[in-house]
């Protein structure tokens, strides 16, 4: 017996947003009856604002597949397509108060249906539908999908890959190939992570800080009506000047802290940011 949360039980027994939409603006379909689960997502999209005004679903599958589908429709209603695309499979699981690990593939299916529906609306093809080489013959799962889900959910074991994608859950014949993919991805990553950070010269450090502020931080602040300028770098102290909305904002400290966090992550742990 699976340990389902009350939320999963509730949305399974009394699912919201069930059925076909009349004249949907977009449909996203993933899975198949052979796989044991399938989800068809229907969207109404406001053409002016690109906002999802209604979302419904039809799902063939187990309790957590039905609950995940219902959760997805609840989450994305009212969001713009871009906002909706930021919803991850973990968000769907979180909305449900968590899913048993073996059932995480249900949340992945939700995320995929959403991608398919948005792609369908925009007239493109969903990311993985036609790409890649089929690894799991039982459930028709491609290497592209496996790689993508491994990265997005930081999966480390074959068991988790099966839990999240179902690949390897049928005859188990593809388990060695999944192991290979895991090894490829993580040894690459490990090499990246393991590389000791080169000690930067002062000039390199200042130009890197400058570049990050220009390319990553300013655009963010500008979109909120603010701005920032690099004033000076004194040893490990980065002095910035907040402009526009940011200057008057009570959250100026928070903004400075956020800049510091970003710079610590990308340049050096030792940096401290001070606003002028």
């Amino acid at each position, binding site marked *: 017996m*699976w340990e389902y949360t009350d939320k999963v*039980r509730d949305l*399974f*027994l009394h*699912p919201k947003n*069930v*059925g076909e939409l009349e004249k949907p603006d977009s449909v996203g*379909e993933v899975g198949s*009856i*052979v796989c*044991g*689960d*399938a*989800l*068809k997502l229907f969207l109404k999209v406001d053409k002016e604002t690109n906002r999802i005004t209604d979302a419904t679903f*039809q*799902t*063939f*599958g*187990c*309790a957590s*597949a*039905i609950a995940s589908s219902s959760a997805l429709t609840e989450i994305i209603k009212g969001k713009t397509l871009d906002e909706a695309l930021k919803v991850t499979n973990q968000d769907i699981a979180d909305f449900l108060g968590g899913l048993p690990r*073996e059932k995480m593939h249900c949340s992945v299916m939700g995320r995929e249906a959403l991608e398919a529906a948005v792609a369908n609306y925009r007239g493109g093809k969903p990311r993985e539908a036609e790409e890649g080489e089929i690894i799991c013959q039982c459930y028709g799962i491609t290497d592209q999908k496996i790689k993508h889900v491994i990265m997005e959910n930081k999966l480390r074991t074959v068991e988790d890959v*099966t839990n999240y994608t*179902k690949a390897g*859950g*049928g005859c*188990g014949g593809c388990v060695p190939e999944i192991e290979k993919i895991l090894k490829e991805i993580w040894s690459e990553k490990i090499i990246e992570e393991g590389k000791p950070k080169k000690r930067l010269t002062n000039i390199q450090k200042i130009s890197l800080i400058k570049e990050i502020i220009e390319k990553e931080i300013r655009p963010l602040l500008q979109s909120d009506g603010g701005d920032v300028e690099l004033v000076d770098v004194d040893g490990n102290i980065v002095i910035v000047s907040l402009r526009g909305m940011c200057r008057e904002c009570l959250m100026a400290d928070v903004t400075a802290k956020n800049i510091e966090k970003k710079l610590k992550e990308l340049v050096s742990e030792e940096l401290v940011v001070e606003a002028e």
Partner: protein
Amino acid sequence: MKVVYLDNNATTRIADEVREAMMPFLTELYGNPSSMHTFGGQVHRHIEVAREQVAALINAEPGEIIFTSCGTESDNTALMSALEFAPQKKHILTTRVEHPAVLNFCKAMYRKGYKITFLPVNKSGRLDLEDLKSSITDDTAVVSIMHANNESGVIFPLNEIADIVKSRGVVLHTDAVQTAGKLPLDVRKLPVDMMSFSGHKIHSPKGVGALYVKRGTRFSPYIIGGHQEGGRRAGTENVASIVGFGKACELAKKYLPDENTKVRALRDRLEQGLLKTCPDSRVNGDVESRLPNTSNISFEFVEGEAILLRLNEYNICASSGSACTSGSLEPSHVLRSMGVPFTMIHGSVRFSLSVNNTDEDIDLVLKIMPGVIKELRELSPYGREVKK
């Protein structure tokens, strides 16, 4: 709310008489049957009574019964023993639809260098006896074929199987966990060397089983230690459960005719009713040769776990061969071996009855099930494919 329990191939309710028979051994009669003092020693007599009761159910001699901890232990013990006495033979013959207790044991032996033949079954779950005949070689150490399948309920023709295997002089083991108490069994007329039984499938507690070893069969213990069970199975006896198992066998013998009349009638009414009220459903397994208590039905376009959890809301208990209920994402190996399409396996539900079931139980399922299937089909993108 009353529980409508239709999952008796998984486990059964402990019969009241069984519980009563056990109680003294869970309270004042706690002595060790191996002890010298009367207080402990007197317990031993009750184990021997239980042995007689188990033997009586299958017409064996009490000395042919070894108590174990479960059906799985009985299976493992039998196969290990057979292999031990044929060290030069490296082939095991079994079927694709065995219980994991045999199936995974064989897979483990494969990794140790044994050759395994897994006999296929046809669409109705039947074995091809010609296949069996031609698969036995001079290298075959043991043949292990279940009597009836726990998922489909299909019964294998044990008499004919035994004749074939014994004519080649090979040791034959049978997992009869699902048939004890449901079909008459007479080991005097069956040339089977070893047979496995489990207590909790016939209304005794979990944690007790038995292995029948025909007189004259060479036997080597699996669990090694003390002298219990005549040196054939070490470990202090699970006295209360053994006593309960004995009582359960006595009851099973008494109720055996009911299985074929009362239980069969309830099962048939349930099955016919569901097939009639739920479109696109069909029975899995050989209806000609099937346990009287089991019905395995596939409901197309819906998924088994969803069906079970909807039934759960009405306290109706059943099980499914769907991948989502297996804990491993792997759909039922039995139904797959029978060539049941994946789409049908996902929507398979097994109902298994017992003498405790009533007409009201069946009425409730017949009332609830069509709505459950209909609602889940309305939820499903394939719902429209249902024939109108």
